[in-house]
């Protein structure tokens, strides 16, 4: 039973207040994109063992979407941050590096 902190309303709540939204930082491909790009966008997932970036919504709360950096092996949460960004902020990356030196995820590390 996870606890997460919503970066928008500052509530640290239990999992049942939130709704998981799958992998974060996925680029949308629309009309005109290649079949492969579109498949990747909709279906292909990192699904890593270890550091992962994912989307959550504070559904029983302020209703905002946010991102979390979490380890899928230990469930350790490195931090949560705004969903309105294209990549994890520096302080989040630093927090991960402190715990998981040499980590990498897609183009981030």
């Amino acid at each position, binding site marked *: 039973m*996870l606890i997460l902190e919503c970066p928008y309303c500052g509530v640290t709540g239990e999992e049942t207040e939130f709704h998981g939204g799958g*992998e974060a930082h996925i680029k949308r491909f629309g009309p005109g994109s290649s079949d*492969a790009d579109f498949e*990747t966008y*909709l279906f*292909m997932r990192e*699904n*890593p*063992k270890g550091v992962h970036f994912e989307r959550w919504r504070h559904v029983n709360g302020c209703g905002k979407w946010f991102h979390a950096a*979490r380890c899928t092996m230990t469930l350790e949460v490195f931090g949560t941050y705004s969903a309105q960004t294209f990549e994890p902020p520096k302080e989040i990356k630093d927090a991960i590096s402190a715990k998981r030196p040499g980590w990498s995820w897609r183009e981030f590390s």
Partner: protein
Amino acid sequence: MRRYSAFAVAREAARFHSGWERAWRSPAPKKKYDVIIVGAGGHGLATAFYLGKNFGITNVAILEKGWLGGGNTGRNTTIIRSNYLQDPSAALYEKARSLYETMSQDLNYNVMFSPRGVIMLAQTEHEVRGYKRTAHANMLQGVTTEFISPARVKELVPIINIDGPRYPVLGGLWQARGGTARHDAVAWGYARACSDMGMDIIQQCEVTGVRSSGGKVVGVDTSKGAIDCDKLGLVVAGNSGDLANMAGFRLPMESVALQALVSEPIKPCMDVVVMANTVHGYMSQSDKGEMVIGGGTDGFNNYTQRGSFHHVEETVRALVETFPMVSRLKMLRQWGGIVDVTGDRSPVIGKTPLGNCFINAGWGTGGFKAIPGGGWATAELIAKGEPGPLSAEFGMERFIEGRFIDESVAAGVAH
């Protein structure tokens, strides 16, 4: 290998069972095999078994990082059914179900297949229509099912509450030859048979890399050294993403934890398997008397095989409402298993971007019931290098084409 029989047991009794042999050998890995199967779970062992039985390929190693049958094969709620809606699923699961019918004899190992019948409750008008549709589809697929009345449901499951108030039972989809089997025995039976065919089951042997040359697989690196092979089968529920990464490709899958629990054992009170999909509760009674209960999956990627509480709460809530007597039973044990879920909730059996490397994965919550069928289809795929009719629709290319196999359309049925 000595046959198992009541007579053999009696004979051994006379000498305090000192004469029983190992059920399977535990050899050191050879330098090279024709086929390496990664994963000694139900699907992996069944794949190896049918490679030998149907195609005479026995120079096979099955590599297991832990102990055989220790993944989802040993953690599921053992439900077996084939009342699926879509043709490809129905074909695959019915093949599996029919193989379960004779598995104990085929393997000379009692897997306790118990065709006690499976009911899926219809508790909304929408579900009624959905299950009637499935019944019509099954009729044309050669799967024997029947849409039954609330009265018949009550007759089959005396402990059920069909009057609601919240969700009165409006009927049910009944598969009389669905049921359960002893999950560990399925893995052990296949393992014993594979070992007997001369295949090497290598436990405590973790694959750490996939070696390839010229776009084709040539072997794997393991915790017990490098092993070569001509063909590689990845059959590692819960670890598929990891193995795919080693082999250099991604999958349309995510791994999540599926929750399950059992009650304390009580005297027989429910002789069939009941699935209540509207409220998300699945329950059957084991031969030991435990009520075996399936829960939901966590909504996030997770590789810990731990139970989490709120899913159990949701499931138990549903069962207390559907079977009021459950309220005064006790939860004995809860646990989680890691399942790979695909974009359309249906499995993948097919080729991969890497030559001679094949995959069987993405069973979500439905893997156990499919073991013999999945093994059969995967063996055919590996032996011929091309999918046969059973797996033809289950290749990964379907996600590019938008050709999904979506079972949830039949009233949101969970597998």
